[in-house]
């Protein structure tokens, strides 16, 4: 899934929607692979052979991909969550921040990488910065939505019992908003796994290397296998992240908030 149209802002509260969308994509790609298998059984053998021949390279590219995604999402979380808390109660700041983050998300990723090259050079840095910025909107928006969703009576009673502003945020508001914030982080992570596949175009490595390799050697033996390898492992990585987030969600959300 290399660069196409700019990705749409993901749904805010749609844990289920995200899962269903991911499932639909996975099914479509699985169908494509099955079709390829049936059409060309030799191709499948050579695809398997292609993977078996280069486990080290696949592992290294997958690792690069993981680091790029995790690094950008963690950075974005550290920026967006405090920012969400800060802009929460100021309508103007809130609208400005959300609009800016929304506009930034519509910049085509390849263009974004290219724009950053003169500033930070080539390598992993431009995709890291761009991915961080892409991840801001889902996390920021879900932080604001999550905090908005905290029952006013709960905040009123916390205040009335003498919890200071910081104590209220730390002990009451963030834990209550957490499931929604985590969904934002999860959406950002899945989004970034897919966009990170084009980091190779600015020298950023990752699994996109296999896809680029296949494209540049189009028509030569092994080019299809190369593209499929990059695609397959990108998808696998996304699925692993989905499962991880579901697990983290269960472990970090209070039992009192789970249905």
């Amino acid at each position: 899934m290399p660069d196409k149209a700019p990705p749409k802002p993901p749904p805010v509260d749609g844990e289920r929607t995200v899962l269903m969308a991911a499932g639909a994509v996975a099914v479509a790609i699985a169908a494509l692979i099955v079709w390829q298998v049936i059409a060309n059984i030799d191709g499948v053998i050579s695809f398997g052979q292609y993977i078996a021949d280069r486990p080290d390279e696949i592992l290294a590219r997958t690792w690069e991909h993981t680091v790029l995604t995790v690094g950008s999402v963690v950075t974005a979380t550290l920026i967006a969550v405090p920012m969400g808390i800060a802009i929460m109660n100021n309508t103007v700041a809130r609208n400005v921040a959300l609009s800016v983050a929304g506009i930034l998300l519509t910049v085509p990723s390849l263009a974004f990488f290219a724009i950053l090259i003169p500033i930070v050079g080539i390598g992993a840095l431009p995709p890291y910065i761009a991915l961080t910025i892409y991840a801001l909107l889902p996390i920021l928006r879900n932080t604001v939505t999550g905090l908005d969703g905290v029952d006013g009576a709960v905040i009123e009673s916390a205040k009335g019992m003498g919890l200071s502003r910081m104590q209220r945020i730390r002990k009451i508001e963030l834990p209550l908003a957490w499931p929604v914030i985590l969904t934002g982080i999860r959406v950002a992570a899945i989004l970034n796994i897919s966009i990170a596949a084009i980091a190779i175009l600015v020298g950023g490595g990752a699994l996109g290397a296999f896809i680029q390799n296949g494209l540049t050697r189009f028509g030569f033996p092994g080019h299809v296998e190369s593209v499929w390898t990059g695609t397959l492992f990108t998808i696998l990585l996304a699925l692993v992240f989905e499962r991880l987030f579901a697990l983290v969600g269960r472990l970090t959300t209070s039992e009192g908030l789970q249905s």
Partner: protein
Amino acid sequence: MTTTDVSATQATTMDVAKTMIRLEGVSKTYPGTTVPAVKELDLEIPEGEILVLVGPSGCGKSTTLRLINRMIEPTGGRIFFDGEDVTDVDPDGLRRRIGYVIQQIGLFPHMTISDNIATVPRLLGWKEDRIRPRIDELLEIVGMDPNLYRDRYPKELSGGQAQRVGVARALAADPPVMLMDEPFGAIDPITRDRLQNEFLRVQEELKKTIVFVTHDIDEAIKMGDRIVVLGEQSRIAQYDTPERLLAFPVDDFVADFIGSGATLKGLNLERVRDLTLSEAQRVRAGASLDEVKAAMSRSDDRWVMVTDDKDRPLRWLNPTHLQRTDKPLDELGHKVQSIVDKRDTLHDALESMLHSKASVATVVDRDGAYQGIVEINTLTERIRDMQSAAKAHYDEQEVGR
């Protein structure tokens, strides 16, 4: 059961009770408005009692309550808490000394019942081995089994249970003062009645200073040791005991707010044992016809009561019942049906009287033995006494000024 005793004591100590919270000329004008929501309010809240702020919607009663723990910052005036000026102290510290219960309860859904209750003790730095027994004690006070509820989450509670936990949480660090903003307002009538009774029972032991906001005059009469009826901008229309408020509303505003039936409501606050009972002419079930006739001749209205050997009322007889009969006395006349206990309210007595053929209620003690009778005149006299006593109280105040 001692409501009347308690209020009687309070009435006499009214001007002696120590003031726990004092508002001096407190005002609140919201930004962007010119009309104050609360205008120069002076209010003294006595220690160890339930003071109810009652008034129509928008009169500022909730605002007034929230000014006390500075959930709303006053724009003028001073607030004193136990003699200390708290108008400018750190509000978080002040709030930890004041229990706060709101209608929507606001339990923390991500915390267990224990952790909810432990909130203020933990803020105050209590040790865990002091907090744990305190949680169990509080759950028992509000009538919930600690072993059953300690580790549950709020979502597993009914509305009534949640409000019990809300009250327990507010009591956790044993604050001298509790502010309650329509605490039972969102609860079904039957559960509300039970919670009110339980809360009054708890209060009888704890003797907290409680400021209680409601828009329901009946709840105010039931809960309040004293009632403040508030008009627009929290103007105090009347500040008095429920008895005097009902007997003597000072103006049309208060009278309208109390609504019709103030006298009947007032009858709920008085007990039969406080009345001077009338005597009925009585005979034992085994008495001779001559004894009965003698009793009848002593009776103003010719009616006599037949009682059993333990003096428990059986029948009402008049001379017509004695004609053409050889039945025993305890099968003649009408059964004595309208029986009230000494501890019942005057409202119960009136109700009973209205059902009685003889228009009297018979009063018995705990064992069912005859104590006297209540006639309709006794009640109307009592009502007049209450009203004139209340009026005299206000006249006295006028003279005092």
